Protein backbone atom coordinates (compact mmCIF):
# COMPACT_ATOMS: atom_id res chain seq x y z
CA UNK A 1 0.00 0.00 0.00
CA UNK A 2 2.78 2.42 0.91
CA UNK A 3 4.81 3.75 -2.00
CA UNK A 4 8.58 3.48 -2.29
CA UNK A 5 9.16 7.00 -0.98
CA UNK A 6 7.08 6.33 2.11
CA UNK A 7 8.88 3.04 2.74
CA UNK A 8 12.25 4.74 2.45
CA UNK A 9 11.11 7.46 4.84
CA UNK A 10 9.90 4.91 7.38
CA UNK A 11 13.11 2.90 7.07
CA UNK A 12 15.13 6.05 7.68
CA UNK A 13 13.06 6.84 10.78
CA UNK A 14 13.56 3.31 12.08
CA UNK A 15 17.31 3.78 11.63
CA UNK A 16 17.14 6.76 13.98
CA UNK A 17 17.19 9.54 11.38
CA UNK A 18 15.66 12.51 13.20
CA UNK A 19 15.43 14.56 9.99
CA UNK A 20 13.32 11.82 8.41
CA UNK A 21 10.94 11.89 11.34
CA UNK A 22 10.77 15.66 11.17
CA UNK A 23 9.83 15.31 7.49
CA UNK A 24 7.21 12.70 8.43
CA UNK A 25 5.70 15.10 10.98
CA UNK A 26 5.58 17.95 8.49
CA UNK A 27 3.95 15.68 5.92
CA UNK A 28 1.18 14.40 8.18
CA UNK A 29 0.62 17.08 10.81
CA UNK A 30 -2.33 18.60 8.94
CA UNK A 31 -4.08 15.25 8.77
CA UNK A 32 -3.64 14.71 12.50
CA UNK A 33 -4.58 18.30 13.33
CA UNK A 34 -7.74 18.13 11.24
CA UNK A 35 -8.96 15.07 13.13
CA UNK A 36 -7.89 16.30 16.56
CA UNK A 37 -9.13 19.88 16.17
CA UNK A 38 -12.47 18.62 14.91
CA UNK A 39 -13.01 16.30 17.86
CA UNK A 40 -11.38 18.02 20.81
CA UNK A 41 -13.27 21.07 22.05
CA UNK A 42 -10.58 22.33 24.41
CA UNK A 43 -7.98 24.35 22.43
CA UNK A 44 -5.37 23.95 25.19
CA UNK A 45 -5.35 20.16 24.89
CA UNK A 46 -5.38 19.96 21.09
CA UNK A 47 -1.67 20.47 20.48
CA UNK A 48 -0.74 18.07 23.29
CA UNK A 49 -2.93 15.39 21.75
CA UNK A 50 -1.41 15.99 18.31
CA UNK A 51 2.03 15.54 19.88
CA UNK A 52 0.92 12.35 21.63
CA UNK A 53 -0.31 10.99 18.31
CA UNK A 54 3.10 11.45 16.72
CA UNK A 55 4.93 10.07 19.76
CA UNK A 56 2.68 7.00 19.70
CA UNK A 57 3.18 6.66 15.94
CA UNK A 58 6.95 6.75 16.43
CA UNK A 59 6.81 4.09 19.14
CA UNK A 60 4.70 1.77 16.98
CA UNK A 61 6.18 2.53 13.58
CA UNK A 62 8.24 -0.67 13.67
CA UNK A 63 4.96 -2.61 13.80
CA UNK A 64 3.53 -0.93 10.69
CA UNK A 65 2.93 -3.70 8.16
CA UNK A 66 2.21 -1.63 5.04
CA UNK A 67 -1.28 -3.18 4.91
CA UNK A 68 -2.81 0.29 4.59
CA UNK A 69 -1.73 3.78 3.71
CA UNK A 70 0.34 5.47 6.36
CA UNK A 71 -2.26 8.28 6.41
CA UNK A 72 -5.00 5.78 7.28
CA UNK A 73 -2.85 4.27 10.03
CA UNK A 74 -2.04 7.69 11.46
CA UNK A 75 -5.64 8.93 11.27
CA UNK A 76 -6.66 5.80 13.17
CA UNK A 77 -4.19 6.58 15.96
CA UNK A 78 -5.46 10.17 16.08
CA UNK A 79 -9.10 9.10 16.14
CA UNK A 80 -8.71 6.60 18.97
CA UNK A 81 -6.45 8.93 20.92
CA UNK A 82 -9.25 11.53 20.77
CA UNK A 83 -11.87 8.98 21.80
CA UNK A 84 -9.78 7.99 24.82
CA UNK A 85 -9.35 11.63 25.78
CA UNK A 86 -13.09 12.27 25.48
CA UNK A 87 -14.02 9.09 27.35
CA UNK A 88 -11.80 10.16 30.24
CA UNK A 89 -13.74 13.39 30.32
CA UNK A 90 -17.02 11.50 30.05
CA UNK A 91 -17.98 13.01 26.75
CA UNK A 92 -20.95 11.26 25.18
CA UNK A 93 -19.82 10.08 21.79
CA UNK A 94 -23.12 9.84 20.00
CA UNK A 95 -25.04 12.66 21.66
CA UNK A 96 -24.86 16.30 20.79
CA UNK A 97 -21.85 17.97 22.24
CA UNK A 98 -21.82 21.59 23.32
CA UNK A 99 -19.07 23.23 21.31
CA UNK A 100 -16.77 25.97 22.37
CA UNK A 101 -17.85 29.44 21.35
CA UNK A 102 -16.58 30.24 17.89
CA UNK A 103 -16.54 33.86 16.95
CA UNK A 104 -16.71 35.37 13.53
CA UNK A 105 -13.11 36.56 13.93
CA UNK A 106 -11.90 33.03 14.65
CA UNK A 107 -13.13 31.81 11.34
CA UNK A 108 -12.22 34.96 9.48
CA UNK A 109 -8.63 34.65 10.69
CA UNK A 110 -8.51 31.11 9.30
CA UNK A 111 -9.00 32.44 5.84
CA UNK A 112 -6.00 33.32 3.73
CA UNK A 113 -7.91 35.25 1.11
CA UNK A 114 -8.44 38.86 2.16
CA UNK A 115 -10.97 39.35 -0.62
CA UNK A 116 -13.19 36.47 0.44
CA UNK A 117 -16.74 37.72 0.64
CA UNK A 118 -18.54 38.16 3.93
CA UNK A 119 -21.32 35.82 2.95
CA UNK A 120 -18.94 32.94 2.54
CA UNK A 121 -17.33 33.65 5.92
CA UNK A 122 -20.73 33.72 7.58
CA UNK A 123 -21.60 30.41 5.99
CA UNK A 124 -18.29 29.03 7.21
CA UNK A 125 -19.12 30.11 10.77
CA UNK A 126 -22.58 28.55 10.55
CA UNK A 127 -21.24 25.26 9.20
CA UNK A 128 -18.47 25.07 11.78
CA UNK A 129 -20.95 25.74 14.59
CA UNK A 130 -23.41 23.20 13.25
CA UNK A 131 -20.59 20.72 12.74
CA UNK A 132 -19.31 21.18 16.29
CA UNK A 133 -22.75 20.22 17.60
CA UNK A 134 -22.86 16.97 15.66
CA UNK A 135 -21.97 13.53 17.04
CA UNK A 136 -18.25 12.74 16.99
CA UNK A 137 -18.66 9.90 14.53
CA UNK A 138 -20.30 12.21 12.00
CA UNK A 139 -17.66 14.91 12.48
CA UNK A 140 -14.86 12.43 11.97
CA UNK A 141 -16.39 11.01 8.82
CA UNK A 142 -17.03 14.46 7.35
CA UNK A 143 -13.45 15.52 8.11
CA UNK A 144 -11.83 12.42 6.66
CA UNK A 145 -14.05 12.42 3.57
CA UNK A 146 -14.09 16.10 2.67
CA UNK A 147 -10.76 17.35 4.00
CA UNK A 148 -8.58 14.27 3.65
CA UNK A 149 -10.41 12.86 0.63
CA UNK A 150 -10.41 9.36 2.06
CA UNK A 151 -12.62 6.65 0.56
CA UNK A 152 -15.40 4.87 2.48
CA UNK A 153 -13.09 1.87 2.88
CA UNK A 154 -10.24 3.96 4.27
CA UNK A 155 -12.55 5.75 6.70
CA UNK A 156 -13.93 2.36 7.70
CA UNK A 157 -10.40 1.19 8.53
CA UNK A 158 -9.72 4.32 10.56
CA UNK A 159 -12.92 4.06 12.59
CA UNK A 160 -13.42 0.28 12.58
CA UNK A 161 -16.74 0.58 10.76
CA UNK A 162 -18.07 -1.24 7.67
CA UNK A 163 -17.82 0.96 4.57
CA UNK A 164 -21.61 0.74 4.12
CA UNK A 165 -22.05 2.26 7.58
CA UNK A 166 -19.57 5.01 6.73
CA UNK A 167 -21.54 5.86 3.59
CA UNK A 168 -24.81 5.86 5.53
CA UNK A 169 -23.41 8.08 8.33
CA UNK A 170 -21.89 10.45 5.78
CA UNK A 171 -25.25 10.84 4.05
CA UNK A 172 -27.04 11.43 7.35
CA UNK A 173 -24.43 13.92 8.54
CA UNK A 174 -24.65 16.03 5.39
CA UNK A 175 -28.44 15.90 5.36
CA UNK A 176 -28.50 16.98 9.00
CA UNK A 177 -26.08 19.82 8.28
CA UNK A 178 -28.12 21.08 5.35
CA UNK A 179 -31.32 20.96 7.39
CA UNK A 180 -29.72 22.92 10.23
CA UNK A 181 -28.32 25.51 7.86
CA UNK A 182 -31.64 25.85 6.06
CA UNK A 183 -33.38 26.33 9.41
CA UNK A 184 -30.89 29.02 10.46
CA UNK A 185 -31.27 30.80 7.13
CA UNK A 186 -35.06 30.72 7.43
CA UNK A 187 -34.86 32.16 10.96
CA UNK A 188 -32.64 34.97 9.70
CA UNK A 189 -35.00 35.67 6.79
CA UNK A 190 -37.93 35.87 9.23
CA UNK A 191 -36.16 38.70 11.07
Amino acid at each position, binding site marked *: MADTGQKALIEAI*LHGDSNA*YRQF*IEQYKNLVAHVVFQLIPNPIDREDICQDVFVSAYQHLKDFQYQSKISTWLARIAYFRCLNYLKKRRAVLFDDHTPEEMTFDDVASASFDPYEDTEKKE*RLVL*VREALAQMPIVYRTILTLYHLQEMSYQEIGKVMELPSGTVKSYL*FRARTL*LRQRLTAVNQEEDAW
Partner: protein
Amino acid sequence: MVTHLNDERVQELLDGQFPIFERREIEEHLKSCDACRERVSQYEELYSTLETAPDTELSRSFARTVLRKTNIEEIGSVQFGLTQVFAALAAVIVVVNTLLYFIEWNSLKGIAAVIGKSLIAFVPALSKSGSTTLQDVDIKGSLVFIVGAVILFLLFLFDRYLLQPRFRSSN
Protein backbone atom coordinates in the same frame (compact mmCIF):
# COMPACT_ATOMS: atom_id res chain seq x y z
CA MET B 1 -37.39 10.00 -17.09
CA VAL B 2 -35.75 11.62 -14.04
CA THR B 3 -37.87 12.21 -10.93
CA HIS B 4 -37.07 14.93 -8.41
CA LEU B 5 -33.78 14.61 -6.60
CA ASN B 6 -33.95 13.80 -2.91
CA ASP B 7 -31.02 14.43 -0.49
CA GLU B 8 -29.46 11.07 -1.16
CA ARG B 9 -29.48 11.45 -4.93
CA VAL B 10 -28.09 14.98 -4.77
CA GLN B 11 -25.23 13.78 -2.58
CA GLU B 12 -24.55 10.86 -4.91
CA LEU B 13 -24.54 13.29 -7.81
CA LEU B 14 -22.01 15.58 -6.15
CA ASP B 15 -19.92 12.61 -5.01
CA GLY B 16 -19.66 11.59 -8.66
CA GLN B 17 -21.35 8.25 -8.14
CA PHE B 18 -23.64 8.33 -11.16
CA PRO B 19 -22.59 6.97 -14.54
CA ILE B 20 -22.23 9.62 -17.25
CA PHE B 21 -25.51 8.86 -19.06
CA GLU B 22 -27.53 9.13 -15.86
CA ARG B 23 -25.68 12.31 -14.99
CA ARG B 24 -26.70 13.86 -18.31
CA GLU B 25 -30.35 13.01 -17.66
CA ILE B 26 -30.14 14.67 -14.24
CA GLU B 27 -28.51 17.77 -15.72
CA GLU B 28 -31.37 18.00 -18.20
CA HIS B 29 -33.87 17.72 -15.35
CA LEU B 30 -32.10 20.44 -13.38
CA LYS B 31 -32.48 22.87 -16.27
CA SER B 32 -36.23 22.78 -15.86
CA CYS B 33 -36.67 22.17 -12.09
CA ASP B 34 -36.10 25.10 -9.74
CA ALA B 35 -36.63 23.06 -6.56
CA CYS B 36 -33.98 20.47 -7.46
CA ARG B 37 -31.61 23.17 -8.68
CA GLU B 38 -31.98 24.96 -5.33
CA ARG B 39 -31.31 21.75 -3.43
CA VAL B 40 -28.21 20.99 -5.50
CA SER B 41 -27.00 24.56 -4.98
CA GLN B 42 -27.38 24.26 -1.20
CA TYR B 43 -25.38 21.05 -1.17
CA GLU B 44 -22.71 22.54 -3.43
CA GLU B 45 -22.26 25.37 -0.93
CA LEU B 46 -22.14 22.88 1.93
CA TYR B 47 -19.52 20.73 0.15
CA SER B 48 -17.44 23.81 -0.62
CA THR B 49 -17.51 24.87 3.04
CA LEU B 50 -16.68 21.38 4.30
CA GLU B 51 -13.70 21.28 1.96
CA THR B 52 -12.35 24.57 3.35
CA ALA B 53 -9.63 23.64 5.78
CA PRO B 54 -10.23 24.96 9.30
CA ASP B 55 -7.59 26.84 11.23
CA THR B 56 -5.50 24.03 12.67
CA GLU B 57 -2.24 25.86 13.03
CA LEU B 58 0.17 24.14 15.37
CA SER B 59 2.97 25.95 17.17
CA ARG B 60 6.27 26.50 15.37
CA SER B 61 8.03 24.26 17.86
CA PHE B 62 5.58 21.40 17.27
CA ALA B 63 7.98 19.07 15.42
CA ARG B 64 10.85 19.88 17.79
CA THR B 65 8.68 19.10 20.82
CA VAL B 66 7.61 15.76 19.33
CA LEU B 67 11.22 14.87 18.56
CA ARG B 68 12.20 15.76 22.11
CA LYS B 69 9.37 13.63 23.52
CA THR B 70 10.51 10.66 21.44
CA ASN B 71 14.14 11.29 22.47
CA ILE B 72 15.06 11.12 18.83
CA GLU B 73 16.42 14.66 18.56
CA GLU B 74 18.73 14.56 21.56
CA ILE B 75 19.95 11.16 20.49
CA GLY B 76 20.32 12.37 16.96
CA SER B 77 22.35 15.39 18.02
CA VAL B 78 24.66 13.33 20.24
CA GLN B 79 25.12 10.84 17.47
CA PHE B 80 25.87 13.61 15.02
CA GLY B 81 28.24 15.28 17.50
CA LEU B 82 30.33 12.16 18.04
CA THR B 83 30.47 11.46 14.35
CA GLN B 84 31.49 15.03 13.72
CA VAL B 85 34.30 14.90 16.30
CA PHE B 86 35.73 11.65 14.94
CA ALA B 87 35.45 12.80 11.35
CA ALA B 88 37.10 16.13 12.17
CA LEU B 89 39.98 14.40 14.01
CA ALA B 90 40.57 12.00 11.14
CA ALA B 91 40.46 14.82 8.62
CA VAL B 92 42.94 16.93 10.62
CA ILE B 93 45.36 14.02 10.90
CA VAL B 94 45.19 13.27 7.19
CA VAL B 95 45.56 16.92 6.17
CA VAL B 96 48.44 17.65 8.57
CA ASN B 97 50.32 14.53 7.55
CA THR B 98 49.82 15.23 3.88
CA LEU B 99 50.92 18.86 4.16
CA LEU B 100 53.98 18.03 6.16
CA TYR B 101 54.94 15.30 3.72
CA PHE B 102 54.93 17.70 0.79
CA ILE B 103 56.34 20.74 2.64
CA GLU B 104 59.08 18.65 4.22
CA TRP B 105 59.11 20.84 7.27
CA ASN B 106 61.59 18.78 9.18
CA SER B 107 60.91 20.14 12.63
CA LEU B 108 57.26 19.22 12.39
CA LYS B 109 57.74 16.17 10.26
CA GLY B 110 58.92 14.34 13.35
CA ILE B 111 55.64 15.07 15.05
CA ALA B 112 53.79 13.91 11.97
CA ALA B 113 55.80 10.77 12.00
CA VAL B 114 54.86 10.11 15.60
CA ILE B 115 51.19 10.59 14.75
CA GLY B 116 51.54 8.41 11.68
CA LYS B 117 53.39 5.78 13.62
CA SER B 118 50.71 5.73 16.29
CA LEU B 119 48.05 5.25 13.68
CA ILE B 120 49.99 2.52 11.92
CA ALA B 121 50.49 0.76 15.22
CA PHE B 122 46.74 0.15 15.18
CA VAL B 123 46.97 -1.32 11.71
CA PRO B 124 50.03 -3.62 11.82
CA ALA B 125 49.22 -5.18 8.48
CA LEU B 126 49.83 -1.90 6.77
CA SER B 127 53.19 -1.41 8.39
CA LYS B 128 56.20 -2.85 6.58
CA SER B 129 57.67 -4.44 9.65
CA GLY B 130 54.86 -4.25 12.14
CA SER B 131 57.34 -2.58 14.46
CA THR B 132 56.28 0.25 16.73
CA THR B 133 59.62 2.07 16.81
CA LEU B 134 59.90 5.44 15.14
CA GLN B 135 62.90 4.52 13.04
CA ASP B 136 61.14 1.60 11.42
CA VAL B 137 58.29 3.69 10.09
CA ASP B 138 58.66 5.28 6.72
CA ILE B 139 55.71 7.52 6.18
CA LYS B 140 54.64 7.46 2.55
CA GLY B 141 52.06 9.84 1.20
CA SER B 142 49.87 7.01 0.01
CA LEU B 143 50.05 5.35 3.41
CA VAL B 144 48.80 8.49 5.08
CA PHE B 145 45.78 8.45 2.81
CA ILE B 146 45.19 4.78 3.43
CA VAL B 147 45.35 5.29 7.18
CA GLY B 148 42.93 8.21 6.88
CA ALA B 149 40.56 6.15 4.80
CA VAL B 150 40.74 3.26 7.26
CA ILE B 151 39.92 5.61 10.13
CA LEU B 152 36.95 7.00 8.28
CA PHE B 153 35.77 3.50 7.39
CA LEU B 154 36.09 2.34 11.00
CA LEU B 155 34.25 5.47 12.04
CA PHE B 156 31.44 4.62 9.63
CA LEU B 157 31.23 1.04 10.97
CA PHE B 158 31.26 2.33 14.54
CA ASP B 159 28.49 4.81 13.79
CA ARG B 160 26.40 2.42 11.69
CA TYR B 161 26.57 -0.74 13.78
CA LEU B 162 27.36 0.37 17.33
CA LEU B 163 25.96 3.85 17.86
CA GLN B 164 22.71 3.80 15.89
CA PRO B 165 21.33 0.40 17.04
CA ARG B 166 22.00 1.42 20.64
CA PHE B 167 20.02 4.61 20.12
CA ARG B 168 17.19 2.72 18.46
CA SER B 169 16.91 0.19 21.23
CA SER B 170 16.86 2.94 23.83
CA ASN B 171 13.52 4.08 22.47
